[in-house]
């Protein structure tokens, strides 16, 4: 990343992660639009591959490190100091490799031996961050405040953090995992009101949906229900995997839990920021959701 705080010229190597290319394409659209308006240059890493999610680690942990070292080596080749993501799990998987190899030369040598045939070497000179953290520690909340054109007054927001942006703290480490406040800081700055709800730090169940669907549905059903009971108009999350869980499965979860037909829309963090920056809902992909978003946020658009 190169930045000059005065004119906010900032540049990151961008690791979109798989879902932004397909199922969460609205997150790709909104991230790029918000970055453009804020003057943040995102240069997509040429040749990046999937971070392995949690799944490759369940089959071959060394492979997970190798593919993420490759991703980071590609960013290093582009001269990047910082790699930016917008997905919790991508952040965790990349940071795990980044931080584990920092303390373990043997592990890095082993990984680099695997990478040799690709002509790449992972040196460990890049730092992985998430948009949520970058806005606070690099861009600055004061600078973000100056860009707000449409304060989201009256909008009640349930901040659903998702696990992998806060845990485990030895690999995330941005804030106290027991009571993070970064989402509240940004959401409140945008003029919206954060509501406190029981499932603020709960798990959406995404990573075990194929083996534990019943329990996953209970997680989604309860998360949506507690957000609604707290009076939220919308759930906002920094993780596309959480967003997909709630957007795709909330209807079925409600049925299974007899929660009624009332659905609460779940949007991505850049979409909420984009609304406050004055970007139109269409330009933020807000019409691409399964659960209709516009009626729930209409009052903040006036």
């Amino acid at each position: 990343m190169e930045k000059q705080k005065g004119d906010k010229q900032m540049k990151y190597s961008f690791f979109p992660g798989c879902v932004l290319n397909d199922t969460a394409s609205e997150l790709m659209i909104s991230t790029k639009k918000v970055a453009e308006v804020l003057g943040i240059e995102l240069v997509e890493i040429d040749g990046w591959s999937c971070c392995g999610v949690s799944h490759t680690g369940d089959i071959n942990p060394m492979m997970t490190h190798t593919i993420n070292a490759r991703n980071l080596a590609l960013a290093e080749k582009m001269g990047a100091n910082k790699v930016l993501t917008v997905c919790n799990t991508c952040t965790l998987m990349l940071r795990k490799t980044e931080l584990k190899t920092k303390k373990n030369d043997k592990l890095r040598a082993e990984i680099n031996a695997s990478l040799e045939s690709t002509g790449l070497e992972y040196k460990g000179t890049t730092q992985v961050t998430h948009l949520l953290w970058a806005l606070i520690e690099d861009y600055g909340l004061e600078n973000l405040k100056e860009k707000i054109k449409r304060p989201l007054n009256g909008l009640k927001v349930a901040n659903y953090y998702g696990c992998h942006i806060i845990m485990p703290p030895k690999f995330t480490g941005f804030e106290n995992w027991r009571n993070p406040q970064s989402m509240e800081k940004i959401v409140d700055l945008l003029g919206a009101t954060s509501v406190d709800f029981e499932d603020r730090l709960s798990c959406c169940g995404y990573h075990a949906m194929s083996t534990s669907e019943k329990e996953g549905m209970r997680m989604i059903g309860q998360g949506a229900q507690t957000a609604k009971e707290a009076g939220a108009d919308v759930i906002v999350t920094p993780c596309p995997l959480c967003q997909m869980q709630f957007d795709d499965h909330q209807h079925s979860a409600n049925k299974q839990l007899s929660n009624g037909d009332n659905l609460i829309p779940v949007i991505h963090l850049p979409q909420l920021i984009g609304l406050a920056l004055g970007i139109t809902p269409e330009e933020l992909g807000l019409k691409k959701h399964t659960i209709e978003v516009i009626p729930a946020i209409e009052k903040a658009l006036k």
Partner: protein
Amino acid sequence: MKTIFVSIKRFDGTNEWYQDYEVPYEKGKTIVWLLTKIREEQDVTLNFTVSCLHAICGACGVKINGSSYLTCSTTLDEVLETFKTDKLTFEPMANFKVIRDLVVEFDPKFERMKEVSPWLKPASHGSVETGFKQSETEFEKISSSSNCILCGLCTSECEQLAKNDGRYLDPFIFNKAYRFAADSRDADSTERIVASLEGELWKCVHCMKCTSVCPKEIDIAENIAFLRSGYNLK
């Protein structure tokens, strides 16, 4: 002087209620000091467990403002700083049967731990009589997982247990299964893996709460992944 407003979830075997207490703040005290002060000065009927006071016995787990802690190794200042409040709500650890107030029942958990054979079954290259030689690398595989003090904080935070119908094993039990499955002195990894599979090993949601809360910094979630992959076992 600052006052700490404490609300404790009570249970007398039949009824549940929240009871409020007020305690004058003192700097540099532990949570167990706070609970002891309430019991000694305000309410002798309050039940909680504590023993070693050094995070070794694992007897003093509770939930404070929704997050699980050992009361003996956690300072009052740390909790106040974390939650930016002087109001603390105490509840018994989650995913346990409650006996009284903050006291939970471990016996059913230990009964289920037997499913993963949490004891050494000597391999043929050594014996109880002659002993074993273990290399540094072999020891490193089980060093961290052996530090478990069975405090139950991982169980209390487990997202799968909170939603599961009862077949899923507790995270500390999976950790115990890994600890013996990975031990170079042990004869059989397969048995522990099969028992873990029957305990719904693949239902772990990778939320990382067990790893995050462990007072001994055991990467329990990673050990669960090792049991799944067979990596890092013998």
